[in-house]
């Protein structure tokens, strides 16, 4: 397959990775340790290296639980699937195993180099790796069948290098690093770009945390900046708190189920279904519609050691989620949206 049939941006091949419009580094690992780690993988292989040096990320990379949401995308052999923000390939690898032609795009070259090794180890050759800024890459019109955006949308408004260990809950050194563009507009622009590239009938799989997860009200820190009680606040208060505590704007915008649905619809998609993932979209035990929430069994309480908390958590989950079906407070959201006929009737 010729990549120029799908990617409109100029690409240059550097060894086995295609390089597109340059983006900034984003990884859980710092730049230097990432480079050192890559050298180790040559010796031990990817799986053993991760197990030895970063066991805390083993499940993030290899756990089969991460790919459960792909059932909703129903991957079929020979479909062209874009994994936007693939990172270490938690979903790219399963998609490739299912026989799809996978185009994995990420702006961190080191992540793609690791992913490339994973693909080689598994002898998967139905893949193309592109290192590019997700905001700048352009697609050919109606060129691919499916798109995956897994835990990426909230990071789209970030403009500069992120080494997560130096970023998460830490003050950033450059307070002027963010432009004044509205994060929602940037996210919508990104989704519109994917919409443009999707074939008619093509599907988007989008996974993100819910802004109104019940536990945020009980003091669970925001998963992107490690600040408590910020996630569900109005945007201007989020900004004020973030500027005081972290010296930066709050740009990792999350959404309520309806806000997210509207965002995706505003990007052009006309058949949007919101699913609710429990306990988290990254490793969901349940992905349910609002009507199906009676199928849920309480889940988070089991991880609580304090017996009083256990009982309270159990009751909250049983009552709020299972019986009252208050999906508004669910932990994570998975959206499956279809690109209908642009001239058809909006559903």
């Amino acid at each position: 397959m010729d990549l120029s049939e799908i990617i409109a941006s100029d690409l240059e091949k550097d060894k086995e990775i295609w390089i597109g419009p340059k983006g900034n580094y984003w990884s859980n690992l710092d730049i230097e340790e990432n480079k050192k780690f890559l050298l180790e993988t040559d010796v031990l292989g990817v799986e053993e290296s991760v197990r030895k040096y970063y066991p805390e990320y083993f499940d993030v990379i290899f756990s089969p639980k991460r790919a459960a949401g792909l059932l909703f995308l129903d991957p079929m052999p020979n479909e062209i699937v874009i994994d936007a923000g693939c990172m270490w390939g938690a979903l790219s690898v399963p998609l490739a195993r299912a026989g799809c032609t996978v185009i994995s795009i990420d702006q961190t070259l080191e992540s793609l180099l690791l992913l490339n090794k994973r693909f080689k180890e598994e002898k998967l050759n139905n893949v193309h790796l592109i290192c590019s800024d997700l905001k700048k890459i352009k697609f050919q019109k109606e060129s691919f069948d499916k798109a995956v955006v897994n835990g990426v949308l909230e990071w789209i408004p970030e403009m500069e290098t992120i080494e997560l260990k130096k970023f998460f809950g830490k003050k950033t050194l450059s307070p002027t690093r963010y432009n004044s563009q509205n994060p929602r507009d940037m996210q919508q622009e990104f989704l519109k770009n994917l919409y443009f590239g999707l074939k008619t009938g093509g599907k988007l799989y989008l996974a993100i945390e819910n802004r109104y997860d019940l536990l945020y009200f009980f003091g669970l820190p925001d998963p992107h900046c490690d600040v408590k009680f910020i996630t569900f606040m109005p945007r201007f208060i989020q900004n004020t708190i973030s500027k005081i505590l972290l010296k930066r704007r709050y740009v990792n915008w999350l959404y309520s189920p309806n806000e997210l649905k509207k965002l995706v619809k505003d990007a052009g998609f006309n058949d949007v279904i919101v699913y609710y993932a429990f306990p988290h979209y990254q490793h969901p035990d349940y992905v349910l519609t609002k009507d199906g929430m009676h199928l849920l069994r309480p889940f988070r309480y089991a991880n609580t050691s304090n017996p009083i908390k256990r009982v309270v958590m159990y009751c909250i989950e049983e009552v709020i989620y299972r019986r009252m079906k208050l999906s508004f407070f669910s932990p994570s959201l998975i959206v499956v949206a279809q690109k209908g006929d642009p001239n058809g009737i909006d559903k």
Partner: protein
Amino acid sequence: MELISNCAHFGSTYTAFVTSPENMPVRVMKASFEKEGIKSLKNEIRGLRWYAVKLGIDPDSVGSYHSFENRYAKLSIPFHEGSCGNPYLPIKQNYNKIVNAIQYYKNLFGKDDYIFSHGDYSLVNMVFAKDEIQWLIDWEHFNDKLPREFDVMNCILEVCYYNFMRTKQLTREDIRLLKKLLTLASDELGFCDMNLNTPAKELYAISDANRGVFGTQIKKYVLTGCPIEDIERIDYFFQKFS
């Protein structure tokens, strides 16, 4: 669609209900991207087809299986109305169901059929109408070539274990019913060399001898995943009330 299970029981398969527009489950879809999960799904479709033949129905009607180069597999099976058994209930309430399960097992697998077994013959995998079994689900350990005692003993002792876990005690009445069930199973299915005074240890020994077959899945069976003290304690009650 509703995803209801993700890599449960140390496996790597996903299970989802495919629902009708009225949100009623019409099919069960299982999929896996991992070798172990694909093996389970293959086993399951084989088991279901064997089961269909035994029941005299069309084997193609019990499910469809698709795979891609042994890296991805998807199984779609019809949803069966009814309620699955609940091993957490008191032994007395489950007694009739287990008696029926033993009879059903005998009729299905036959006294002399040593080749196949269900492999996860738990009340949760039986669809009941009142106390009668309507359908068996979860055939992922079919063809694992387990000793025949394992299925029925696991079914009985699972209920025993959940009752034991509630108070760490078993009553004289519990033991009387359990012994009755074990004797029935032994008579019906011919477990001649089984010591019914130490059934928990017997089951543990069977599982232990088949660790290679179960792999990581061994922990999903309550009596093989639990501490050895619990097994000894259960057997203590069997001996105490013998």
